[in-house]
C-alpha cells in the first residue's frame, strides 16, 4: 500500500534559527563569526569549531572531530541535515532538522566527510548547545607518566561528561594536557576544585585561566583515528616529525600540524603510510585535506559504482526551486 504519491520536489532546508530546539541552518560557506552572530543573543553556541576564519565546509572536510567532541561527539552527531549539491547540479535534502531520526538509510553520516567524491554541501543544519556564559582553560604540566595519570583521572569518572575538551598537546618536545571548561559562572568554583584535586592526585602542575577566549587550533594537516588508549603514545612517537599535535583523547583522534613547505604533502603521506597498518588493524583511519582520498578496494568499488549511478543520474525534473522561506 503506497498511500502517498512521490514528491515532485525535494523538501530543501531554508536558512533558519530555531532557538527552542537549538538548531541553525546556514550556508556551508559560513564561518565561526557567522554562527556567533546568529546564536549568541539566544545564549546558544556551536562548540565544534576548529578555525575562526575558515568556512565550515573546509573545517568539516579537514576533520571528523573537534576538541569539544569529547563532550558532544563528532561533527556527524552535531550536524543534523544538509542541502547537498549532486554532481548533476541538482540539490537533494539529506538528513533532518530534528535531533533523532531513523527514517531511511543514513546518507548524512556517509556523505558528511566524503570530500567532494559524491557532490558537495550547500547548507548545514547545526545542533546548537546552551551557552552557559563561562569558559576556562586548564593546562596540566608534568612528566609523561604524570600526564597519563592526569588524563586517566579526568576521564575515568563521572566528570568526563562535563569537560568540553581533554586534549593531549605536544609542541616543541613539551607535552601537556589541556582541559576546556564551559559552565555557568556559579559552577566555576566546583570545576576549579576538581581540577585542583586532579593536579594534586597526579603530581601535575595546574595553570587555570578563567574567562579564557576559546582560540581554535586551526585545521590539522593530518588526522589519525585510533583508540583513546593509543593517542598519547602515538603523539609522543610522532612528535619529532610534527610542529604540534593535539590529541582529542576520549575520541581517539590525533590532529597533527606539520611545518609548511613544498614537500608537506610528501611528509604527510610518509607519516600516514607509517601509521596506517596500526590504525587499520584497530578499525581506525587517517585523513588529510592535502592529499587525495585512498583508492577504493575491489569490494567497495562495486558498491560505489551503484551509488554513483544514483548520484549522477540526470533524470529531468521541473526546475528545482527552493520552497518559500518558512518561519520555524
Amino acid at each position: 500500500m503506497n498511500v502517498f504519491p512521490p514528491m515532485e520536489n525535494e523538501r530543501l532546508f531554508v536558512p533558519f534559527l530555531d532557538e527552542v530546539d537549538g538548531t541553525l541552518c546556514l550556508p556551508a560557506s559560513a564561518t565561526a563569526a557567522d554562527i556567533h552572530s546568529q546564536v549568541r543573543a539566544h545564549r546558544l553556541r556551536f562548540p565544534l569549531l576548529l578555525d575562526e576564519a575558515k568556512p565550515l565546509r573546509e573545517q568539516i572536510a579537514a576533520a571528523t572531530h573537534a576538541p569539544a567532541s569529547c563532550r558532544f561527539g563528532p561533527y556527524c552527531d552535531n550536524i543534523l541535515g544538509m542541502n547537498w549539491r549532486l554532481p548533476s547540479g541538482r540539490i537533494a535534502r539529506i538528513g533532518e532538522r530534528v535531533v533523532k531520526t531513523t527514517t531511511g538509510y543514513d546518507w548524512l553520516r556517509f556523505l558528511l566527510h566524503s570530500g567532494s567524491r559524491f557532490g558537495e554541501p550547500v547548507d548545514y543544519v547545526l545542533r546548537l548547545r546552551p551557552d552557559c556564559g563561562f569558559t576556562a582553560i586548564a593546562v596540566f604540566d608534568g612528566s609523561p607518566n604524570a600526564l597519563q595519570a592526569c588524563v586517566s583521572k579526568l576521564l575515568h569518572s563521572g566528570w568526563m561528561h562535563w569537560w568540553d575538551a581533554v586534549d593531549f598537546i605536544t609542541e616543541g618536545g613539551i607535552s601537556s594536557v589541556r582541559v576546556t571548561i564551559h559552565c555557568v559562572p556559579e559552577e566555576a568554583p566546583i570545576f576549579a576544585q576538581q581540577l585542583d584535586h586532579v593536579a594534586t592526585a597526579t603530581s601535575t602542575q595546574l595553570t587555570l585561566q578563567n574567562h579564557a577566549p576559546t582560540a581554535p587550533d586551526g585545521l590539522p594537516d593530518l588526522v589519525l583515528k585510533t583508540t583513546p588508549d593509543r593517542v598519547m603514545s602515538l603523539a609522543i612517537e610522532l612528535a619529532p616529525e610534527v610542529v604540534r599535535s593535539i590529541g582529542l583523547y576520549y575520541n581517539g583522534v590525533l590532529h597533527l600540524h606539520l611545518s609548511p613547505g613544498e614537500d608537506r604533502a610528501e611528509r604527510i603521506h610518509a607519516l600516514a603510510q607509517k601509521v596506517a597498518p596500526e590504525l587499520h588493524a584497530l578499525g581506525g583511519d587517517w585523513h588529510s585535506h592535502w592529499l587525495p582520498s585512498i583508492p577504493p578496494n575491489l569490494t567497495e568499488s562495486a558498491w560505489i559504482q551503484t551509488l554513483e549511478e544514483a548520484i549522477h543520474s540526470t533524470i529531468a525534473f521541473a526546475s528545482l526551486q527552493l520552497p518559500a522561506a518558512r518561519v520555524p
Partner: protein
Amino acid sequence: MISPVKSSLEHQLKALLPRGRVLISAAQLAGYGADGLGYKNHLPDAVVIPADAEELAGFMCGAKALGVPVVMRGAGTSLSGGPVAAQGGVVVHTSALKKILEINTEGFWCEVECGVGLNDLDAALKPYGVFYPPDPSSGPVCTLGGNVASNAGGAHCFRYGVTSNYVLGVEAVMLDGSVHCFGGPAGGRGSWREDWKRFMIGSEGTLAAFTRFWLRLLPLPEKVWTFRATYPDLKTTEAAIHALVAHSSYPAAIEMLDPRGVAMVESSQMACGLPGGSFMLLVEIDGPEALVNARVEAVAEILRHAGSQDVMFSDQDEIRKKLWKARKASGGLLGQLSPSYVVQDAVIPKRALAEVLQLVYDEADAAGIRAVNVFHAGDGNLHPNFLFDSRVPGELEKVELISKRLMQRVIEVGGTLSGEHGIGNDKSAYMPLVFGPDSMRLQLAVPAAFNPAHQMNPLKVFDNRHFIA
C-alpha cells in the same frame, strides 16, 4: 503434515546449519509471526538458529541459492514490523550469538556479539564503572543486533544520544557469505575508502546480517537526581520542556506521560502515587556529586516556574527505580487495555509539541479511538499509542487514517517519521512524504548496492522492495 516444498527447504537448511537448529513446524514458527507491533502477523516458512557466527556466515553463503527471503531477528521486540517475514522465507534468529568478547575500559570500548541482551551488557559493564547509554524500554529483552539494526534510542537519549552515536564498528555478513568489518574499536573507516558502517546502522536487516559490534562506552555518572512534576495542560507542560532543553544542567532525560498514561499507570501494579488528570514530566540530571547537587534547586525552579504546583525530586535509588519502572512498563500496560495498539515514533521540532499532541487527541477522539501519549519530550520524539481491536472491522483503518494525518502534519512542521523504532513495514507507506525525487533515488541506491534482489528483509523500509527469486 509438512509439504514437500517445506521438506526440501528443511533439508537444505539442515545442510547449511549442521550444528544449529532448524524450526519448521507450525507450533515452532508461531512465535516468530509478529514483533512487538503485534497485530501484523507473517509466519515464516522456517526459522534457523545458527550455533555461532561462523555458522551464520556459512548459512549466508548458501542463502542465495535457497531462493527465499532472509529475515534477521534478535529478540523480536521491534515496534515497526521489522523482523518479521512479510514475504515469507527464513527467519534467522541470532539468540546463540551472545558472547561479550571484550571490555576495554582504557579504550572506552567493548566488543559484543549481536545476540547479547542490552541489559546483560549493562550488568557486565557496571563493575568496570562504565556503561553503554542507549536504553530502549525493551532493555531487559532486546538484543544489541536489533538495537543497531533499528538505531534504537531510549529515555536518556536527550543528552546521551542514540545507538548510531555509540557504534564504532560492525561485522557484517553479506548474502554471498563474505564477512566484512566496517570500523572496529577505533571507530573509523578501517582500510575502506568510505565509511560503510553508516549505512549498516539503522538498516533494519535490509543490507546484511550483523554478527558482532564494537561499541563506545562512557564512565558511569556518580549521582542521579530524578524529578517528577505535574501540569494541568499541554501548554504549561510544553513551556517546562522548552525551558529544560535550554538549561545548562543538560538533563539526561525529559519524559512525558499524558493524563491517560498517568491513569493507566496508577490503575496498575506500577502505581506510584501520581496525581490524576495531569500531564507528568519525568526529568533526570546526573553527573559528579558536587556538580549535580548544585543543580537540583535550579531544575526544580524551572519546573515550578513553568506552572507546576507539584514538583518532587529525589536522589534515592528506590524512588527512581519506581518512577522509571512505571514509565518503561507503560508499553506493556497498553496491552492490558486493548487487544491491539499502534505506536508511532515521529520526531518534531519541540515548538510544535502542544499543537501536534492536540491533533493526536482531536483526531483520535473524533474517530472513537483511544490515544495515550508516553514519550521522549526532550527529543521531541512522540509515541502516540492508538488502542484498537484489530478484530473489529474498520478499527485498523481508522487508526491508519489518524496516523496518515498525523504524519502529514509531522512533516509539515519539519519533523520526521521515526526517531528510534525504524520504519519496518509499519511506516514504509509514509516514506514518499519525506524523500523527494533525488533523495529517494539515493535511498533506494543503498539496498541496490548491497542487496540488489532485496532478498534481505523484503518489503521493509521501502514497500516496493520485493524479492523476486
